[in-house]
């Protein structure tokens, strides 16, 4: 074996098991969705929708190679398409309830295998990466990607259906969420811009005017309260998190007190979830179900959740404060 092929063989797993390889795979899936959307005559916005998924696919495939300004402009193009109502749903040749029930009787619990395969492959990859002393975070994400591929193959094998049906069903789920799919990615980018613009320092200095910098309990209280209030107003804890993390959590709690970031960050996020339980702005979770269940009072779900939400929010404050003190 020549040294060259040796190096090539050694780097093959690196290439194959890199995040880029699963990004490319995801991009290809998106391109298939885009191609199907362009042909979907029942989608009133098929060119806008198709272009949206085509661009997202291109960012997945070429995102690591493209210059950043080009990716940025493509993101702007996607947002303009969505902002002008250009992303819509089509028709997906859906199965009927009766068909699903007869399939369920025939296949039984076997239908769980492909779905369970996704977390199993994810965990296997993460464990192997840990054994090889590679980045475990990357292992889990690469595992998710290959888990999705394994699940597709397994599902086709169990159902004996066609690949075209497989992709059509994937497109159905993807379009059900629509352009909101990219919202978490955009919010994380917003956090980066906030950091560059030093918005966080500004909020932090504002809070220092009210709360003494050495009073940990009041800072924790301000952090959890800010997170819940922002979530209540916006109806979305994911949108509140970048603001609170850059403005309160990092500069006022993690840095000065030397706290483990993982510990307080996830508790801050769920302090926001407690806000979600209280707000009609989170219509998907609180108002839509009330309509779905024909409730007399459209705020009935929120009213039921309120005592739970207030209790668990207070426990967030106490837990975060106690954990910082203890660890």
């Amino acid at each position, binding site marked *: 074996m020549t040294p060259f092929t040796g190096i090539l063989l050694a780097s093959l797993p690196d290439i194959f098991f890199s995040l880029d390889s699963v990004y490319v795979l995801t991009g290809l899936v998106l391109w298939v969705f885009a191609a199907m959307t362009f042909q979907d005559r029942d989608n009133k916005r098929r060119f806008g929708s198709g272009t949206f998924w085509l661009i997202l696919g291109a960012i997945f495939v070429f995102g690591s190679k493209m210059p950043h300004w080009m990716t940025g402009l493509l993101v702007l193009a996607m947002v303009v398409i969505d902002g002008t109502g250009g992303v819509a749903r089509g028709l997906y040749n859906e199965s009927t309830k009766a068909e699903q029930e007869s399939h369920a009787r025939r296949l039984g619990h076997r239908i769980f295998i492909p779905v369970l395969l996704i977390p199993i492959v994810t965990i296997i990859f993460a464990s192997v990466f840990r054994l090889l002393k590679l980045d475990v975070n990357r292992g889990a994400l690469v595992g998710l990607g290959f888990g999705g591929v394994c699940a597709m193959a397994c599902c086709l094998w169990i159902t004996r259906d066609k690949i075209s049906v497989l992709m059509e069903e994937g497109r159905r789920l993807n379009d059900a969420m629509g352009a909101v799919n990219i919202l*978490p990615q955009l919010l994380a980018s917003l956090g980066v811009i906030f950091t560059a613009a030093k918005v966080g320092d500004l909020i932090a200095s504002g809070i220092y005017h009210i709360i003494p910098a050495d009073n940990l309990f009041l800072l924790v209280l301000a952090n959890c309260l800010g997170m819940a209030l922002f979530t209540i107003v916006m109806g979305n804890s994911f949108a509140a998190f970048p603001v609170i993390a850059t403005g309160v959590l990092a500069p006022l709690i993690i840095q000065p007190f030397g706290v483990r970031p993982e510990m307080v960050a996830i508790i801050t996020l*769920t302090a926001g979830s407690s806000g979600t339980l209280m707000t009609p*702005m989170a219509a998907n979770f609180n108002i839509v179900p009330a309509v779905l269940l024909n409730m007399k009072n459209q705020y009935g779900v929120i009213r039921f959740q309120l005592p739970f939400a207030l209790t668990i929010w207070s426990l967030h404050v106490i837990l975060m404060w106690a954990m910082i003190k203890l660890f």
Partner: protein
Amino acid sequence: MHLQDLFKLSGIAIVVIGFAFRLRTTLVVVVAGLVTGLAAGLPLFSTGGLFDAIPFLTKPGQEGIIDMLGRAFADNRLMTLFIITLPAIGLAERYGLQEQSAVVIRKLAAATVGRLQVVYQLFRVLTGILGVRLNGHPSFVRPLIFPMSVGAAEGIFHASSAEDLPEDVVEEIKAATAASENYGNFYGQNLSVVQAGILLVFTVMSGLGYAISIFSLVMFAIPIASISIILAAIQFWLLDRKYRRKATTPR
């Protein structure tokens, strides 16, 4: 506070107002980013690219807002990786994934309204741990959990049909079934390394310069997830107790 500082905060105001008024979320977020960047005096583009020749678009030594947006969006592709799992889940749904899940829930199901909510919440925590994203209100709560809960209440109130149940009880059961979905979903989803909340926290904290592990994020999500299960169990147990008392006192 300086005037420029006030303008910088306008980005947050745009997000708050935009989400509150239900404007297109994607548009709101990107406009907020552009406004914040421009208010902070950042250039639109980095130097060294195509845009050097055009005045005002670049500033030496500073990363442009558009470049930053593109870099962050590409770096955070991991948040949208779940799309690759959609074909398999979609096909499994076509072949009765929901119906078969309903079979499992029916087998586990308990005889009272409250215990049924606890079982369903645990089922949602389990789907969260497995990294499965599902919208449970239309797929499980409305077609399965609500009718089963009404059935359980009929047993407790010795009613022959849902019409014989007190109206406020039926309304409360509706709210309880919707709530058990939210409790299980919100706090259970952080128990998997591939769910959106964990990945958002991971990318935002990485953007702030903290090298963190997604597995420790999940570990630190366990206390609150456990508390959510206990608190909800208490609330649903109180509901059962209320119905037992109500059923024995004559109306």
